[in-house]
């Protein structure tokens, strides 16, 4: 029994760590926007209903990678090899659900809201999502050919393979799926709502660009040490490496905005994206905020605020004025690419002492 208790305590620690990894959403641009909307509603004496769909979208997406089965955290072979009796194994299986993150969240909801129905509703939503996620993961393991990311094609050109790699990395952050849901909703609104107002297309496009903007602060956040070594070995100038990252970013943003089929919307999204990448260059290369796959990207607070404020201000100004602001942000992006490339080349130049790296 002592061994079981110890194991459960370890599992609880692992679950706590996992839950903490989801806190990355706190420095995500989409979350910051929703929080800002909620705050301004409360300050003005209104209920923060407008921000609720955003918070719901964030929460539902985070439920997919959150494993409700804590025993899944133990490598199956290790679990099999431990000398537990059948009775102990059954006990472990049953008691392990006590440290399930889903149960903890439901309990927290119960304590905070004092509404049993709300906690029950959460479980009713969370558990099917967990089942779907577990089945999808199992199917992907047993039938590798159905993995959707596999179907991202190689793009032409010298760095086409790198762009494919970068596209796959972008698609392994939850930001991508939040933007995808908004993009699909926006397209449905655009094409199937008879009352669809074209004035709303550009702000919708900017919202998509905003949801995708945090990963611009951690372009290399998902690279393993092994992957970074390969980058250092490739005979590529820094501008090519960074351009391959930026190209993936533009491809994703434009693909999601294109269904709106509105030139002003595409212009606004492009402007926002140029601003987001330009401002994200420094944290991406120098600050390197940590990033985990299947989590929302996390940025640096100051740079996130700058991305939100400047991106939105310049984006809205661009809608009302001329393409000159789009051109201006494009030039700013080019300058950031040149400066970032210079930094990259210095960093990977063996003539520079390691103490300066």
């Amino acid at each position, binding site marked *: 029994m002592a061994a079981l208790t110890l194991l459960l305590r370890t599992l609880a620690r692992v679950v706590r760590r996992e839950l903490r990894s989801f806190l990355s959403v706190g420095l995500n641009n989409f979350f910051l926007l929703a929080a800002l909307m909620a705050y301004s509603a409360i300050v003005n004496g209104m209920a923060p209903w407008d921000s609720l769909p955003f918070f719901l979208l964030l929460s539902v997406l985070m439920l997919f990678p959150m494993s409700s089965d804590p025993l899944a955290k133990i490598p199956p072979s290790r679990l099999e090899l431990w000398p537990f009796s059948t009775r102990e194994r059954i006990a472990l299986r049953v008691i392990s659900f006590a440290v399930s993150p889903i149960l903890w969240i439901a309990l927290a909801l119960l304590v905070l809201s004092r509404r049993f129905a709300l906690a029950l509703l959460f479980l009713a939503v969370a558990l099917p999502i967990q089942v779907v996620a577990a089945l999808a993961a199992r199917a992907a393991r047993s039938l590798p050919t159905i993995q959707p990311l596999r179907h991202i094609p190689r793009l032409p*050109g010298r*760095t086409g*393979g790198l762009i*494919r790699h970068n596209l796959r990395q972008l698609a392994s952050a939850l930001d991508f799926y939040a933007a995808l849901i908004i993009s699909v909703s926006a397209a449905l609104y655009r094409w199937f709502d008879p009352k669809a107002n074209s004035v709303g297309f550009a702000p919708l496009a900017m919202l998509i660009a905003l949801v995708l903007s945090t990963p611009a602060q951690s372009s290399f956040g998902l690279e393993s040490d092994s992957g970074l*070594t*390969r980058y250092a070995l490739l*005979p590529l100038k820094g501008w090519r490496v960074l351009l391959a990252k930026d190209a993936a970013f533009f491809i994703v943003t434009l693909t999601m905005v294109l269904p709106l089929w509105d030139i002003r919307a595409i212009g606004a999204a492009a402007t926002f994206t140029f601003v987001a990448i330009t401002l994200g260059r420094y944290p991406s290369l120098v600050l390197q905020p940590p990033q985990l796959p299947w989590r929302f990207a996390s940025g640096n607070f100051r740079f996130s605020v700058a991305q939100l404020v400047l991106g939105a201000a310049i984006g809205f100004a661009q809608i009302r004025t001329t393409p000159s602001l789009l051109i201006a942000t494009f030039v700013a992006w080019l300058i950031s690419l040149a400066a970032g490339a210079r930094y990259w080349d210095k960093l990977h130049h*063996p003539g520079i*002492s390691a103490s300066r790296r």
Partner: protein
Amino acid sequence: MIHCANITKRFASLIAVNDVSLEIPKGICALLGPNGAGKSTLLKILTTLLSPDAGQVSIDNIDIQKDPLAVRRIIGVMPEDLGLFDSLSIAEHLELSGPIYGLSMAETRSRSEQLLRVLGLTRSQDTFLSSCSHGMRKKTSLALALLHNPRAVFLDEPFEGIDPTTADTIRDLLAGIARRGVTVFFTSHILRIVRSLADRTVMIRSGSVVWDSAATPDLRPLEDVYSSLFEPSPTEDVDWLRSPSS
């Protein structure tokens, strides 16, 4: 081919590479030494991954500090951490690498197919690296090192952690490319393979070269030279491993 003069590399108070000078012509050179001797650090310096604190390195008369990109174009490397992307499959790694080194897609595909066949990776070429075994990852990294037909190949422990049949295949492959004029520089702990493959053997300890077969020819077997230079760590009997009742 590989020229390095008075290379020194420090990490805080630790001297990882201490005033190493080597002149390696075409052929196969093996670098031996116990764990922590400085083999991987020296390899990283020779392959532009680390900058030396002092000294000069040139590959095929190109100074790595003056033109690292030119050096990266002519070398193939299997680094210590293998340098692979988890989000790509084995075949996709080769598809990524070929065009970067100036190969056309057709040439990349044709060379990839042959390399995958030689290394026994054809059946698993569509496996994502995150699902590959250590041996498969190692072979993928080796294929990446060879794909662009480099003038010099640097391999960090290519024979460790792979099955004996594949080790023999890799040994034959390296012997073949060396015969065609490629310089092969590798580190290893497997003395049997080093003995059968390398034209020259260099041993380092605490960052310094302590034996070079080119400078000090020794008629003793390699194993004897190795054990005379590197003292085994003191043995201690872990007695509780044999007393299940205690």
